[in-house]
């Protein structure tokens, strides 16, 4: 047990040293270091963005913007927070950017109007019901999306950091730049609204 804890802390320590080395190389303008950064964090950043935006194309754009912003602003990184925290912060800020939010809302409005005319829509695998299994999966996906869309985006961002990144209240507060109390309260709001959405059909039945 002690051995496994020791090796885990050693791994974390190695990762921190590795992150610091990566930052130094990036600040020197090393192209390979940038490629390494992208390769290492691309899936993680996409996942956070997808959790907040619930749109694959939008999340890809956010991911690219975050890396380009990181590349541009790596000189400003002073090590106050860890590299993953800094990238998480850039991602959340990018997703909650007011211009992007409005574009998303307008697009969503457009999509809901288009659905009436049966316009083709780009879908994920789980949105394509070709068998019973897929139909069930698609229903689950829709149910999740519907429940999450009911959450305002700043609240959704806190929920995403908690559930996907498994951050503590303090880490969430540090990442988003809010008080710990606010982070806790937003998470509480998220759960309350989700419970209301998820459990109400059950109660009706």
């Amino acid at each position, binding site marked *: 047990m002690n051995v496994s804890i020791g090796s885990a802390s050693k791994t974390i320590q190695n990762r921190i040293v590795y992150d610091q080395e990566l930052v130094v190389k990036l600040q020197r303008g090393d192209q390979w270091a940038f490629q390494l950064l992208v390769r290492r964090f691309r899936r993680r950043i996409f996942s956070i963005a997808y959790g907040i935006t619930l749109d*694959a194309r939008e999340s890809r754009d956010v991911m690219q913007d975050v890396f*380009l912003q990181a*590349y541009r602003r790596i000189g400003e990184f002073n090590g106050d927070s860890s590299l993953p925290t800094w990238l998480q912060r850039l991602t959340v800020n990018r997703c909650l950017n007011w211009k992007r939010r409005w574009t998303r809302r307008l697009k969503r409005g457009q999509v809901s109007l288009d659905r009436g005319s049966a316009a083709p829509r780009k879908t994920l695998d*789980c949105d394509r019901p070709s068998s019973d299994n897929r139909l069930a999966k698609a229903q689950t996906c829709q149910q999740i999306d519907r429940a999450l869309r009911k959450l305002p985006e700043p609240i959704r961002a806190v929920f995403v950091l908690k559930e996907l990144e498994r951050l503590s209240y303090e880490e969430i507060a540090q990442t988003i730049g809010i008080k710990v109390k606010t982070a806790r309260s937003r998470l509480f709001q998220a759960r309350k609204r989700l419970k209301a959405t*998820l459990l109400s059909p059950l109660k009706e039945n």
Partner: protein
Amino acid sequence: MPHARPICCDDRPLDRFLDGELDAEDRHPIKDHLMNCPECRRQAVAMLSFAKRFRERVRQAADSVDFVACEKEVLIKALRQRRFRTSSSAVSTSLKYVIPALLTVGLVLFFIISSCSWMVPTI
């Protein structure tokens, strides 16, 4: 008929329990409560199951992305950005010297012209 929830049930400690934010000491009363309160148990199970399905949903979405193509695109854009920055910084550096030099020349000319006009006798 929906289950009536006892008034003593408070969501906040339950949420903190689910988030793993409680000490071992504070966890026990919540565990006991969950054993005895079917409604709280139902809500806890629903939230845990939702979180699991949400993670699965995001994983599926990430699986359908061509990250290699994305990486290539980002690298190309970053290189372009770097080239633009290098060229624009060269221009801005040169402007940093050219503008004060022009201003100095202008001031010197202004003083020369004004002193010359002062020296010309008025009729």
